[in-house]
């Protein structure tokens, strides 16, 4: 039985790496008495998968994972028990009997609260460029990458930049790279920023 779980990460949860996060969820499922299925073989691992995992440093109100249980569970009880077993910084919003296959994701909407937000003019200058090339570390060394095509939308409101960026296993752009690019191409330093994901989309 597969379930799709919608959850939020706040406070310190943004510092938990993806691998540690998976372990945190599977231990919480054990505490919550939810019969999580394990893969077979010599080194069984819990059947959990995440849609567009977040990079360390980003909080969110719209994350998704899929959990396979070997016994059926009531969706509300699932949600309530898991919430009771999790630290406060991870909250379950909704549990639905479903599969991640039915919830494709290729973009994420981020709110970036800046110490020193750029104004609309700076964003316009930034986005009017033909290409926005940034260094990306790959296995083969540092590569120049045009990130412009991965920015689906960007606007600024008071001290917050809202950006819609590619997210998922095909293409993925981290919002840090966008604030870095703004600095590189416009000279505007956003200062200390808080990155928060508000929505996952399929565009």
């Amino acid at each position: 039985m597969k379930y799709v779980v919608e959850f939020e990460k706040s406070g310190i949860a943004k510092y938990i790496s993806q691998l540690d996060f998976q372990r945190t969820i599977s231990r919480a499922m054990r505490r919550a008495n939810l019969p999580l299925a394990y893969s077979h073989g010599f080194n069984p691992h819990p059947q959990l998968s995440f849609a567009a995992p977040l990079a360390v440093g980003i909080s969110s109100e719209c994350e998704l994972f899929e959990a396979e249980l070997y016994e059926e569970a009531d969706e509300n009880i699932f949600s309530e028990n898991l919430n009771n077993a999790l630290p406060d910084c991870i909250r379950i919003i909704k549990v639905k009997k479903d599969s991640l296959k039915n919830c494709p994701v290729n973009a994420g909407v981020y709110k970036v609260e800046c110490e020193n937000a750029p104004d609309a003019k700076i964003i316009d200058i930034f986005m009017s460029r033909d290409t926005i090339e940034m260094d990306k570390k790959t296995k083969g060394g540092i590569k120049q990458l045009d990130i412009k095509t991965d920015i689906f939308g960007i606007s600024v409101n008071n001290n917050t930049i809202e950006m819609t960026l590619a997210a998922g296993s095909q293409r993925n752009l981290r919002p840090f790279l966008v604030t870095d690019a703004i600095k590189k191409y416009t000279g505007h330093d956003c200062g200390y920023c808080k990155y928060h994901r508000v929505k996952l989309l399929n565009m």
Partner: protein
Amino acid sequence: MTDKIDKILLNVSKPTRYTGGEHGSCVKDKSSVDIRFAFCFPDLYEVGMSHLGLRILYHMMNERPDTYCERVFLPWPDMIEQMKSENIPLFTLETHDSVKDFDILGFTLQYEMCYTNVLSALDLAGIPRRSADRGEADPIVCAGGPCVYNPEPLSDFIDFFLIGEGEEQTNEYLDTYKRCKAQGLSRKETIKEFSKISGVYVPSYYGQTYDGERIASFTAVEKGVPVKIKKRIITDLDNTFFPETIIVPYMEIVHDRINLEIFRGCIRGCRFCQAGHVYRPTRHRSPQKLVEIAKNLIKNSGYDEIGLSSLSSSDYPHLEELVDSLLEITEKNNISLSLPSLRIDNFSLSLMNKVQKVRKTGLTFAPEAGTQRMRDVINKGITEEEILNGAQIALRNGYKSIKLYFMIGLPYEEAEDIEGIPLLAQKILTKGAGQSLTVSVSSFVPKPHTPFQWARQDSLSELEAKQKILLSPKISRKIKINYHTSSLSVLEGVFARGDRRLCKVLERAVDLGCIFDGWSEYFAPDKWNKAFEDCDVDPAIFTRARSYDEILPWDIIDCGVTKNHLMRENEAAKKGIVSPNCRAKCAGCGAGIWKAGECV
């Protein structure tokens, strides 16, 4: 979390070392408690969080409504750099408040090589290093753990030491602190009150004089303080506090599992082993109690691995019964059970075979010495025949590779004993041809309160020469011999048997940048050499042989085992005479005064 800390966490490796907020960690209203206690394990989070003692005392203190115990670890140098540049002082994981604002700062000292970290933690907290320089606004600084069986090298920095097991004593000094605070007593008066608790050692109440390399006198300079500090122990483990829940870290820690402490102490009396002497008498938890603890912790932690912890699990009298009952719980819950510290014999292997999901990749063996004579000298009650049989049984049971642990630099050692190490490995290999063997050789460090406490420790060059001897016999290429740099062992030996003359050296070493000495990437022998030179202290005065009539720095500490017993054992070692274990025959070591465990 303050924005200030938040800002730097993205610039450091493994930020969950510093965030706290794990499942099982304690959240309290800090304004509603009388005592704020900062509990510091002076090493990285993943090391400190693997320590059972910290976990027990943390939950025990937090059971008290009047106390909030919070954890502190030493940040890794990348974090220290960020904290310094942002002016962030050392903080606790629970509230992220500055350690300097706490009532008590308690260190647990698990190994000598964390001493520079203790001073670094004080520096980072903004607390004066030396007890004498602290004022009313500073926390009272105490320390416990195995290293305090010789507390002297830290005596200028720690206001009071806690000797022995902490479960009872902790509550006594928290009660005392609360009373003193309510009465408005000064720091000095409060420490005086602490000193009335059994097992508390206040180093500033004693003074030393020296005669060359020796201590000439060690006497009380304060009225009414004890001549010796007797360690505290828990006589009944079943009826002492054990937490029903544990903290479940986000990041992977060194021992990332439930650890079940099955007993304390050890009946064996290996002559090199400090734990086997200072934790006497051997006291067990009952299988019923252990199963109850295991059930609670499994339910409350969600861990899928549980391990037994003790100095020598094979000596637990109810091992089979315990393993059977644990298997009933673990198998249906998909939990793996690990059984470390087993002697390799038919009984152990039949137990290990019962435990499914055990990986038959490697097995470890600790003969400790290469020849029978040397094993008799150190009282490692194991014969060559038993070792060879064990290896054969292991190979027959499908263990592909075996790892063997040995020591060099032991007292009364001859070249032949060192050559015996590769030769023994060769014999094992010949018995089970076609397999591979790893031999890991460490350098012996004489420790206080053991029969070898008077022994001379080999110098660096002697140890290096002995490492060469290891490689001289012709043996199969399937045997891999590993040994480590000995300079760390020599330094460890200096601090293990050192005295107050080391305080200034330690301070100088920290000023020169020494930190995380236990981590090879940070250990800096050159800086240490300079620190000794600058302070005009010769480290060799602490590694030399001591005579029976000499005052030892740790004579002030009474761990139960008498000096007479240790001398008898050292004399037996010289002659290669083996002593029976506590269960076979009581040797009257002195720990019997507690009338507990095996001594009853």
